[in-house]
């Protein structure tokens, strides 16, 4: 399968099975798009090219086919198997939040539970569970999530210390990350993050009015000014360590490229903006008919992105950072995030779920880190649901970049873990196209 496309006024081809990427001219695009169908020189679009031009381009295409980097057939996959290993935990360290974001999938942080924090004993049991289940994996990940982790920061700190003390004994390397709304972020927290957190994700949605419209405090007040001030202080002290300013765009700010650039104007150089995922009846939900406008926004953003990266406003946009010269192995591309299998979430009561988005759904309890119960029925089901079991995804040219999409979105919105949530598919495809075009234009492979 070969995907050809135009992006940023240039033409490209992606050989899906080999991952080879080419910049091509328009004639070559038309020839590739024939996909073996007979060529009629007398008809559009070929009538405007000379016979020699067409033969030259055909010759180049054939050369790449002979090198097995164009029209590469789909080979046999190294099919992923369930091995029971867990390498990453999302600790929902607090089922409480200082904000009440209108689009929150976790019902304002509570996950439809009573508002409570995770006890130290539960967090420690989660670390023990992870070590015990991780087999020979050395790199283990723990993300402090919520709700708002800063509302239970003492337990976060104690858990990090507890895990660090176990690293040597078990030959493990913990990579901690934290996702925070930054509303209560103080200098002590920042220093702690900079000492211990491999990655920090701070949530800001972009422009003040965009953010304040949907990210109110628990008392219904605006949160933007306080959060921006805290995030900028954090950025100043973070140096070159990994972090992201992560925003959500909704039906109310479909012009989200402005928000990404605004965040860059505010001094941030690592930015991620994600489409909201909500039932279609929600006033903030993105619908199929919004997709063309959103796709155009990625192109607008990509143009400005290239320009700014030549200046002192250089920044990274998460979805434009696709590694087209390398990236992960095939196995990773088939299994994706590993939710429900090698990546699990733990609620404050110790219950284990396939990922943070399943927290509170009684049908999705896998076990409990405190009681030690663990039923591998769901992990086996999730492990089996990979790219090779998703017929619609197998036909898609972007399959090796998204791995068949988010399992939680598939379950929540399509009722089937093997069915892709198509709104995000369209956006993913455009982001991959932009990422390829940007890499080709910047020439920094």
């Amino acid at each position, binding site marked *: 399968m070969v995907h050809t496309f135009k992006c940023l006024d240039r033409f490209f081809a992606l050989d899906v099975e080999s991952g080879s990427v080419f910049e091509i001219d328009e004639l070559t695009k038309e020839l590739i798009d024939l996909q073996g169908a007979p060529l009629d020189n007398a008809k559009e679009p070929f009538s405007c090219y000379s016979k020699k031009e067409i033969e030259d*381009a055909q010759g*180049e295409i054939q050369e790449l086919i002979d090198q097995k980097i164009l029209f590469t057939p789909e080979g046999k996959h190294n099919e992923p198997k369930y091995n029971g290993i867990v390498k990453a935990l999302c600790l929902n360290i607090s089922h409480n939040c200082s904000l009440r974001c209108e689009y929150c999938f976790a019902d304002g942080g509570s996950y439809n539970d009573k508002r409570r924090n995770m006890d130290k004993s539960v967090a420690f049991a989660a670390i023990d569970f992870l070590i015990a289940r991780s087999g020979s994996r050395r790199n283990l990940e723990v993300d402090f999530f919520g709700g708002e982790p800063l509302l239970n920061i003492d337990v976060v700190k104690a858990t990090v210390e507890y895990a660090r003390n176990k690293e040597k004994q078990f030959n493990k390397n913990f990579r901690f990350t934290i996702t925070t709304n930054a509303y209560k972020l103080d200098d002590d927290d920042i220093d702690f993050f900079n000492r211990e957190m491999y990655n920090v994700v701070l949530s800001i949605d972009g422009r003040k009015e965009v953010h304040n419209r949907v990210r109110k405090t628990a008392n219904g007040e605006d949160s933007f000014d306080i959060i921006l001030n805290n995030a900028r202080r954090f950025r100043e002290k973070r140096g070159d360590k990994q972090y992201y300013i992560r925003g959500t765009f909704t039906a109310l700010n479909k012009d989200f490229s402005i928000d990404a650039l605004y965040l860059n104007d505010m001094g941030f150089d690592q930015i991620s903006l994600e489409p909201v995922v909500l039932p279609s009846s929600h006033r903030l939900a993105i619908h199929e008919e919004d997709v063309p406008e959103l796709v155009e926004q990625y192109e607008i953003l990509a143009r400005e992105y290239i320009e700014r990266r030549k200046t002192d406003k250089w920044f990274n946009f998460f979805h434009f950072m696709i590694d087209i010269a*390398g990236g992960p192995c095939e*196995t990773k591309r088939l299994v994706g*995030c590993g939710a429900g299998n090698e990546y699990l979430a733990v609620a404050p009561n110790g219950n284990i779920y396939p990922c943070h988005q399943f927290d509170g759904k009684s049908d999705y309890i896998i076990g409990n880190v405190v009681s030690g119960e663990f039923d591998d029925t769901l992990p086996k089901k999730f492990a089996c649901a990979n790219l090779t079991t998703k017929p619609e995804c197998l036909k898609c040219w972007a399959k090796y970049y998204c791995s068949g999409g988010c399992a939680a979105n598939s379950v929540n919105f399509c009722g089937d873990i093997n069915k892709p949530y198509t709104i995000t598919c369209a956006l993913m495809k455009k982001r991959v196209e932009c990422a390829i075009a940007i*890499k080709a234009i910047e020439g920094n492979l």
Partner: protein
Amino acid sequence: MKHIKVIAKSTICREQGTGCGECQSSCQSACKTSCTVGNQSCEQKKINNVFKESK
């Protein structure tokens, strides 16, 4: 070549013995609602690069 410029060649590693699982979970990496794996890095390649640089 006049009509085609090769940007990247055969980038999807299908070798046996891959899938060591040492790389970061994609959902953990930044966004928590996205499944992009294309921008993930291979941990083995990182280790090899560091090893090469230190030699």
